[in-house]
Structures are given as structure tokens and as C-alpha cells.
């Protein structure tokens, strides 16, 4: 089996967070990772807390420890992170599989890049995320009851 050549990450931690001049899609990707890490942190705690229901402890119901406004707000942030991460994730999978980046063309001046071709997909996904966020926000504010 062929060995994969690995290159040093010269940028270190900045390589995680710095988008440079790569365009808004690169920053959307960085935010995708940040929201992913936030969701993971919440999820690991969520598994432990919800597992306690097997011992009869429902800490999230009315009167429970996690039924305070601060945790409700935290839940909304998790919902917002999920809405963004899910819809941007669809975009990333589509782009990774070669959709929405246009067909390969001869590099003839003025050059066209696939980065600009995929921009409408980003805009559509962000509009959908905003709609989902509004629906979730109305629920958290109690407007849906």
C-alpha cells in the first residue's frame, strides 16, 4: 500500500482559525468546525444527563436543575449551532462530492474558479439556516404555544 506523504502544519493553531483571503466559504468552514466542537461538548454532557432518567432523575423538567433560564438560553445556542452546522454540512458534502462547483473547463483568461460557482449554494443554505433559527427562536421565546 502506498504511503501517504504528510506535510508539516506550519501554521499550527492559526491554521485552524485563519481563513486569510480564501473567501467567505473558508470562514463558513471554520465556523462549521467551531459549532461542531460546541455541539460535541454539549452532546457528551447531554448523554450523561439524559441517561440519568434511567434512575428516575429528570433534571431538565420544570423544577429541575437544568430548567433555569440560563440553560434555556444555552439550549437555544445549541439549536442555533445545529441549524448552522447541519445546513453548512450539506453544502460541504455536496461540494466534496463534486456538486455545485461547475464542470471542469479549459483555463482560458479571464479565469473562472469553482469557488465563485458554489457561492449561490452557500447563500441558499444560510437562508434556510436563518428560517430554521427563526422557527426555533419562536419556540424558545414561547411564541409557538
Amino acid at each position: 500500500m502506498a504511503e501517504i506523504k504528510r506535510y508539516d502544519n506550519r501554521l499550527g493553531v492559526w491554521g485552524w482559525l485563519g481563513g486569510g483571503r480564501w473567501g467567505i466559504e473558508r470562514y463558513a468552514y471554520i465556523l462549521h468546525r467551531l459549532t461542531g466542537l460546541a455541539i460535541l461538548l454539549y452532546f457528551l454532557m447531554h448523554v450523561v444527563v439524559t441517561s440519568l432518567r434511567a434512575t428516575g432523575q429528570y433534571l431538565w423538567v420544570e423544577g429541575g436543575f437544568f430548567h433555569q433560564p440560563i440553560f434555556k438560553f444555552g439550549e437555544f445556542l445549541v439549536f442555533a449551532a445545529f441549524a448552522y452546522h447541519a445546513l453548512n454540512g450539506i453544502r460541504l458534502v455536496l461540494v466534496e462530492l463534486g456538486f455545485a462547483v461547475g464542470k471542469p473547463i479549459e483555463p482560458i483568461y479571464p479565469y473562472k474558479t469553482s469557488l465563485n460557482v458554489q457561492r449561490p449554494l452557500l447563500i441558499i443554505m444560510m437562508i434556510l439556516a436563518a428560517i430554521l433559527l427563526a422557527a426555533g427562536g419562536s419556540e424558545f421565546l414561547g411564541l409557538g404555544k
Partner: protein
Amino acid sequence: MRETKYWTWHMSAGVVILFLLGLHMLIMHVGGITHLFAPHTGEAISKENSLFRDSRMFFTVTYVLLLGVALYHGLYGLRTILFELTLKPAVEKAITFILLVAGLGLFGLGTWAAIATHAIAIAGGRG
């Protein structure tokens, strides 16, 4: 090739999560609009509504499935981010081992809770 396979699983897990967590979010956090699987009055996350869902085999199975794919997706994603720092092979192995143990431990805990709560809910909610 092995890492390519793991990455494909990571993306596939994301698609499964999209549907299962989407349903979870619709029930738990947009319940005021949808009123899905929450027949009792009050919040969708109330004890009565939680027990109603726990009594359904569909939810027990999907909870375990969602737990498995979400743990894989999240912990493999974290591993990918950490590995970008070009770590020493021994450190990479240690990280993989820690994430694997943590993932299996949480999967065991969550699976036990889903099955135990299903039994409690069927028996009449004597949790």
C-alpha cells in the same frame, strides 16, 4: 485508504444524523409548532412526554442509532482537527485510544439508559 474509509463513514454518519437529529430537534425544540410525539400537556420535554416516547420501540432504537453515529461523527471530527497539528505518531495513537474508550463508554451508558427507560416506561413509568 483506511483514513479515506473513515472519512466516508464520517460524512455518511453526518447524513444519518441530519435526519435523526432533525427529528429530535423538531420534537424537542419546535414542539410548540409541530406537537410531534408529545401527547401530554405541557412541554415536549416533560417527564410524561419523555416516558411516552421511551415506551415506543421506534424511539429506543433511534436513540441508540443516533447515539452511535453522533459519537462517531463528533469524536472522529475532533480527531481530524487535532491531527492537523502534525502530532507525533505516539501522541496520535494515544488520542485515538482515548477517544475510542470515551466513545465506547458513552455508547454503553446511553444504550443501557435507553433500554432501561424503555422497560420502565412500558411498566408504567415507575422511574
